[in-house]
């Protein structure tokens, strides 16, 4: 390597910086002045300039078809991942730890974890699980508000792909329409989905509800008013959720029973709600009635007080 004069040696870093457009204005002027009077450094400056321009030419190179192919490959893999990816969050609630999970389409999983870790269960569902997600914070907060009686509905996108069949999905969508503070029977839900004889299948679909609380399967009870079952053996949870919504229930020997006689009532297709003893109630099966915890709950669904039993003038006293 040739020995440079000291003035040249000192300016080499600035010279390179100036040639490749990385120098500040002061350094640039220093370099300009120097190369003006030093031919070897001017040559060096030009060589770096040429390299920089060749680099600039590299930027314009379009990879063309190979890029399109790479993009198509990515889209396929993304679609696959999207269909499997579930973001989840685990939080403490008055009902114990709850896991809430969502896909790109919406909330797809709510699970009572109790004291057990629940992630194994999520993995078993054939999905790829990833912790947290900012939006889930809102969902878990709203769920807690509901459990404290401060929220009556969830405006969430729901993804029902974890439902086991189209029939299950139909049942769950029908259950999603049962209003806050109301209960109806498995038989009535079976009638709703056009399969009045499939009462047991309806109960089974609700038992496998992937998003309990959000899809309020706890609002479906036996025709007699017995709660009959919830999420396996969590009948006490069902009673607590109903209590949050103001639905009165009493303990029986093995179960709880909704106090039908203490609830307002309406029949399918009716526009009014009645006291449970109203004589104008159509002679439909008891199982087909929807019961309301309060006049407010009934009126929130657009029902008006019956003009014959006047629940507005003679509210039920508890």
């Amino acid at each position, binding site marked *: 390597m040739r020995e440079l004069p000291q003035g040249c040696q000192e300016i080499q870093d600035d010279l390179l910086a100036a040639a490749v457009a990385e120098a500040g204005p002061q350094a640039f002027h220093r370099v300009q002045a120097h190369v003006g009077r030093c031919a070897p450094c001017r040559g060096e400056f030009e060589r770096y300039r040429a390299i920089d321009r060749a680099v600039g030419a*590299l930027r314009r190179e379009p990879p063309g078809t190979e890029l399109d192919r790479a993009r198509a490959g990515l889209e396929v893999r993304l679609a696959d991942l999207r269909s499997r990816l579930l973001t989840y969050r685990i939080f403490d609630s008055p009902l114990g730890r709850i896991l809430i999970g969502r896909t790109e389409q919406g909330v797809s999983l709510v699970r009572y974890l109790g004291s057990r870790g629940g992630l194994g269960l999520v993995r078993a569902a054939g999905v790829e699980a990833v912790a947290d*997600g900012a939006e889930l914070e809102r969902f878990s907060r709203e769920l807690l508000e509901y459990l404290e009686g401060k929220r009556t509905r969830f405006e969430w996108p729901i993804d029902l792909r974890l439902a086991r069949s189209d029939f299950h999905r139909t049942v769950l969508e029908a259950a*999603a329409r049962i209003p806050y503070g109301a209960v109806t029977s498995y038989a009535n839900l079976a009638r709703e989905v056009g399969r009045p004889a499939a009462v047991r299948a309806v109960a089974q679909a609700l038992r496998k509800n992937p998003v309990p609380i959000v899809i309020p399967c706890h609002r479906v009870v036996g025709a007699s008013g017995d709660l009959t079952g919830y999420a396996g053996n969590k009948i006490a949870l069902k009673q607590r959720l109903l209590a949050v919504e103001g639905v009165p229930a009493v303990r029986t020997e093995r179960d709880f029973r909704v106090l039908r006689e203490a609830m307002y009532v309406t029949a399918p297709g009716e526009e009014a709600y009645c006291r449970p003893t109203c004589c104008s109630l159509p002679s439909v099966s008891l199982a087909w009635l929807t019961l309301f915890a309060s006049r407010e709950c009934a009126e929130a669904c657009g029902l008006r007080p019956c003009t014959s039993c006047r629940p507005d003038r003679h509210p039920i006293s508890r």
Partner: protein
Amino acid sequence: MVEAMSEEPFDAIVAAHHGEIYRFLRRTTGRVSDADDLSQETFLRAFRAYPSLPPDANVRAWLFAIATNLCRNHFRSEKRRRKALAVVEADGRGAEAGGPEGETLFNEARSRVEAMVSRLPVKQRLAFTLRKLHDQDYETVGRMLDCSAESARAHVFQAFRKIRGLLNGEDLARAEARR
């Protein structure tokens, strides 16, 4: 209540940045198949992490950081690295013919610069490519390479010196002058 999410913002991110990330990886790995794999992996990772990305994050720099990281892991295996170099050198020699003499010389110079870049050590190559071909600032490049902004700048300058040493700079300047 039962409805689909109306928009998928991640699609917009793919549309906006896939081309550039792909080119970056094509340049730094020197192989189409590696660029395919690593660009897919970059976006799949990004998709998984996207829900927890702060709303004010710089998405482009974030994608470059993922791609850079994958690239560095990829090159940790020395064997792989050598294979990649052999391929790029073969590519580099196959310069296109035709056109005015100056243009040909310049194209040749360009592909030689490309081949030189691919022979740089990984950190220099990444710093050089991020800075000179993808306009990342030195702070960002430093963060991606786990070093200071000053070291990132030093990597880029070192890369220039190496290219200058490897290339016959005279030819390059003359080719330019004759264009």
